[in-house]
């Protein structure tokens, strides 16, 4: 049976492999197209037929010939100026807001984008939408189940201990009955005997001390645990002056984080976007929303929007986004959690020094293709079989973060 199953797996796998190789070139184009689309187009266009800033692109290749699309992407104004009917209708429909030209895109790249749009629409909508949450939910459940396992184990142990206690008690009982030394006591009712014993027990100074020590220890631990919790704001999700939804922008519309948080690959701070970045899209869309109106008011009154800071590091700790995102190749969600599912942003990680250090102990240095690390990797590999970790290059040193 095992044998059979493995054959089946191999068979299925080979089919998948065959299909994959057959579609390799298309897939590659689509993959490149995906990244191009997400970085350049997604801020204004949807792959579905839903209108964002510009029209939804579902079925675009059927609506227009590819040559027209290429010309349009390279220079929309020129196409409009040429008197193209479709182009002019489109232009007027969208309040005469012209698309940004992308003259540097090659025809291949544009075709890649189209391939991606087709692929995105070709995949059955329901499974595509469902797949991602299912995949990401799995590890979460796994984490939960491992916690549940622990509980089951503990309860099991407790049950076993109670059973052992009962067994021991019954043995003691039998033994004392057998010895017959305490014949009189056996006639005393059980409850009375129990209360007498309890009194004796309570009078015992060793037990008293033991209980006091136990209470003190537990109390102390609770205090220390609570004290450690001071200043940790995991789960902190303050209400913001504008009900901005990351779930909508980063989740549904898949706008790249970098589009708004402009410093995330370059600087120390990722930067809360300035209002003019909001205006890139919202000068055209959802203008009537009371939340968007707040941005207009801020701009009109020349009063900056006072967002509430969610992630607060103390001044004594220096943290640089670029080091972690650009150089380390970490994804935003490694620290910020699944922002794309948050209606209101909350602090997912504890941001304690222990949390930083833990990660620096476990994480491999993203040394591949970075000449800065070449010599370090070489030296490290001489006398170690494990990959180069952040801690091996001084990632635990004080002055990496405190100065």
């Amino acid at each position: 049976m095992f044998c059979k199953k493995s054959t089946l797996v191999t068979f299925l796998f080979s089919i998948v492999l065959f299909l994959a190789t057959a579609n390799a070139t298309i897939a590659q184009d689509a993959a490149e197209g995906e990244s191009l689309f997400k970085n350049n187009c997604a801020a204004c266009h949807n792959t579905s037929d839903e209108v964002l800033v510009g029209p939804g692109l579902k079925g675009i290749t059927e609506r227009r010939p590819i040559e027209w699309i290429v010309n349009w992407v390279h220079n929309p104004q020129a196409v409009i100026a040429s008197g193209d009917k479709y182009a002019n209708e489109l232009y007027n429909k969208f309040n005469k807001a012209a698309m940004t030209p992308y003259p540097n895109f090659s025809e291949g790249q544009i075709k890649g984008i189209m391939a991606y749009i087709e692929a995105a629409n070709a995949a059955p909508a329901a499974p595509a939408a469902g797949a991602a949450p299912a995949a990401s939910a799995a590890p979460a459940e796994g984490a939960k189940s491992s916690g549940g396992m622990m509980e089951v184990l503990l309860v099991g142990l407790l049950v076993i201990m109670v059973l052992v206690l009962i067994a021991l008690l019954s043995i003691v009982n039998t033994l004392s009955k057998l010895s017959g030394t305490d014949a009189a006591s056996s006639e005393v009712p059980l409850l009375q005997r129990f209360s007498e014993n309890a009194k004796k027990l309570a009078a015992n100074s060793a037990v008293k001390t033991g209980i006091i020590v136990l209470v003190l220890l537990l109390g102390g631990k609770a205090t220390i645990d609570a004290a450690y919790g001071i200043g940790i704001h995991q789960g902190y999700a303050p209400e913001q002056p504008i009900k901005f939804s990351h779930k909508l922008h980063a989740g549904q519309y898949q706008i790249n984080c970098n589009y708004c948080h402009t410093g995330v690959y370059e600087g120390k701070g990722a930067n809360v976007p300035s209002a003019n970045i909001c205006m890139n899209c919202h000068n055209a869309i959802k203008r009537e929303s009371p939340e968007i109106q707040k941005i207009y008011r801020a701009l009109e009154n020349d009063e900056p929007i006072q967002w509430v800071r969610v992630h607060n590091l103390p001044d004594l700790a220096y943290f640089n986004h670029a080091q972690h995102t650009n150089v380390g190749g970490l994804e935003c969600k490694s620290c910020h959690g699944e922002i794309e599912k948050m209606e209101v942003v909350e602090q997912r990680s504890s941001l304690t020094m222990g949390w930083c250090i833990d990660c620096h102990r476990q994480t491999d240095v993203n040394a591949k293709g970075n000449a800065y690390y070449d010599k370090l990797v070489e030296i490290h590999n001489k006398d170690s079989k494990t990959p180069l970790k952040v801690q091996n290059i001084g990632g635990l040193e004080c002055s990496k973060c405190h100065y």
Partner: protein
Amino acid sequence: MENSNKRYWKGIEELTNEPSFVKNIHNEFGNMPSETDAKGDSLVDGSGTHRRDFLKMLGFGVAAVSLAACESPVKKTIPYLNKPEDVEPTIANWYASTYTDGGDYASILVKTREGRPIKIEGNKLSSVSKGTLSGRAHASVLSLYDNEKLKGPQSAGKATDWASLDTAFTAKLAEVAAKGGQIRIVSNTLLSPSTKKVIADFAAKYPTTQHITYDANSAYGLTAAHGGILPAIDFSQAKTIVSLGADFLGTWIAPTEFAAQWAITRRVGSDKEGKKTMSRHYQFETILSNTGANADYRATYKPSQEGLVAISLYNAVAKLTGAAAVAGASVKVDHLDKAAKDLVASKGASIVVSGSTDPEVQKMVAATNALVGAYGTTINTGQAVHYRQGNDAAMASFIQEVAAGSIAAVIFYNANPVYNHPQGAALAAALPKVGLSLATNDRADETASLCQFIAPDSHYLESWNDAEPKAGFYSLTQPTISTIFKTRQAQSSFLTWAGAGNDFAAYLESNWEKNILKGGKVAWNNALHDGVFEPNAVSVSAASPSIDVNASAGAIAKTYAASSTELEITVYEKVGLGTGSQANNPWLQEFPEPVSKACWDNYATISQPTATKLNLKQGDVVEVGAKGYKVSLPVLVQPGQAQDTIAIAIGYGRSKAGKSADGVGVNAYPFLVAGALTATISPTGESKDIAQTQTHHTVMARQAVVQETVLGDFAKDPLSGRYNPTILTSEGKKNATDISLWNGHKYNNHAWGMVIDLNTCTGCSACVISCSAENNVPVVGRQEVINRREMHWMRIDRYYSSDAEVEDLKGLEIASDNPEVVFQPMLCQHCNNAPCETVCPVLATTHSTEGLNQMTYNRCIGTRYCANNCPYKVRRFNWFRYFQTDDFDFHFNNDLGRMVINPDVTVRSRGVMEKCSMCVQRIQEGKLTAKKEKRRPVDGEIQVACAQSCPTNAITFGDMNNPESEISKLLEVEKEGRAYHVIEEINVKPNISYLMKVRNKDTKKEA
């Protein structure tokens, strides 16, 4: 003192083992209040805390902690509304600009963070300033955030707005012009050609206008001797340098440029091919100046002898070159004949400079220069420099005209003659006679407060401007921040009043397009980007001014005397504060003067024998008088000063500059009045402590600190003068550095290190200010400096050495009248066997894998064991919360002043230790840039603040693991030569090496 052939001392109190010194030598924190101190109320005077205060603080502390623990305050994060395209928060922008303050000039780069300038560094594209900056230029960024500047224009002492000021002032100007009344614009040297054009436009509109230029530190004598121009001087070509009282490394004309040139001639190498020649530098002067401290041979004269010293030198040179001698009493000054011999021997590569303001003396010096072939080589009359354009005669006649009531209107263009002109008092008395007066000064200072209108000029970092420091060499100033207060740059004001628009930025650009760039290849934007525009090559002229030496000698004979027994006064400029234009800058006030090591004051310096003769000691307050002007100030005993002379620094005694400057010291400008030479001195019976840092943070009794040799010995053996400590072990004598308890560190990545060349360090201390700016070092104030608690991470140790033989024990006890001086920059040595690291109970100071000794403030609990155990005494303890505390009312105590804080460096709180971090924030930033570009850092890309700011490149910083780096190459050459570690015998293996000082003196045999 077994390890060297000299005895070094930092101060007379150290040499004589005075009780105050002995008391403090083992008390590095100065935390033992004496009984009398307890009467004081202030926390700052070191008197400790009272019981009630303690209870109050305890109660408040408990309450605050429990409140703080309940809920953390909500923090806001406020982005731009409209983010400027080129500003990315947390990423610094650099702009090329130009620093000018009167005739002080430097082409600079301004570092701005989130739109505020926080640091100034040199612009290496400039062939004039070559990236060198003085301490004052570094400190100028703090003057931008001076809260005591005027917040807007004023009329009759009351705030007004620009429109009404313009209306009122132009109406009155028109009135004056209609009547043909005389109008004067008074300024210091203006380096800006466009500004001069603006003034010309103003003069065209009001034809009775004359522009009077004067300088507080005048070089009029030199200009007059050269027919109205200031010749360009190049010390880098000189083999023999003779200076008659010109402090060209510290204060004279363009000191950082000169220091860079001078250093080129002082660099030597220990390897076989290494340079074994140096310039020989003679200094004849009255005070012990920063330049004199660096001279090979030095002798003193009295101010009344100066002219005759020039004649004696001329005659000595003339005798050797066969020229005719001039008449004049000869003065006996040590080394003068030797200097003449060297000058003639290195003919064509010799130079004589003089700091005298007397044109006749300068003429004698010019004639000497002509004899030794300096013109065309070391002095270039073909390329005028514009640093000092002041005309003393014109200014004097202006003051007379004001007194006579013949001036109808005056505009003081950023000039403060009431304070910084010798006849300031006379001018102040006469000013009410002027019908219309206006000042563009940035504050209601001594002069501006006497004017009817004040139209405050913007700071140079808020302004457009240009400069022409040398004929044909241009540079631009661009605003790096919008105006903080309602100020307007003076050029725009002049344009407004002249009715020629009000936009100086456009005016400047069109002037450049028309007259400077002239449609050439370099566009305005390129010039603005580079900061400098230098279309022409240097034109060299060997022409020397024609001088009637006999006439000059005759004039000199009348005013100078070969010998005098009288007590004489001389006035000098301090390296830190200069003329006092930036007196309200706390960084400059707390700047320890290179030689005296005193800050927050000026004082009367006298030599030890003179002090003994007058029965005075350090700190005695005396009344000094000359020509009817009297001041009271404390005495500072200064070795190396001419006998029977008193010297007082200018730049102090401001009365209307702001709280950091007012009442600090006394005004010495009135002593500059002609003929004020003979002085009286009388003790007042009072005494005052001088905030002097020289014996603070001493290295206890360990003294293998300075190593030096003379050139002749060095040429024969690069190891001469080097001291290699050995230790007797069971296996015989061993090098101290070969025995260690520790395993040492292995550096796979970088190994940061520093080499400091004692031969080229002039002690100018620009690095001290640069370090303070980079690392948010707090200013602690006069009293705390006296309490020995200054916070500078970088200190320049100044050692005097006795000229007595090492065997002459009696002689060694006497403070030399003319000691040799060594400057030694001292900062955390980043030891590999660091004594501080092993004693920290909480591991707050640790060693990094890149060789840095790290200090973690948030971990420090303030036991101070590390400082106790530091052999170099480079750790500083935060006794107080120096920010937001009224006891320390400097820039850290107001929101505007705090704008200068470097956001990448923690502001340390009370109770923690701090020290040089080797600018770890810069190292990290440089590494990150390299990592982002997927490459190794290039040598020189990462620079620490002190190395970056050293005008003479005495400090070399770099990665010792990179064989291509400058520091590796330097150490490769010097490790078997001049390189040594301070206190090598304790084998703490510092990452900072020093290069032994070599003096170009005769060897003992030659002498």
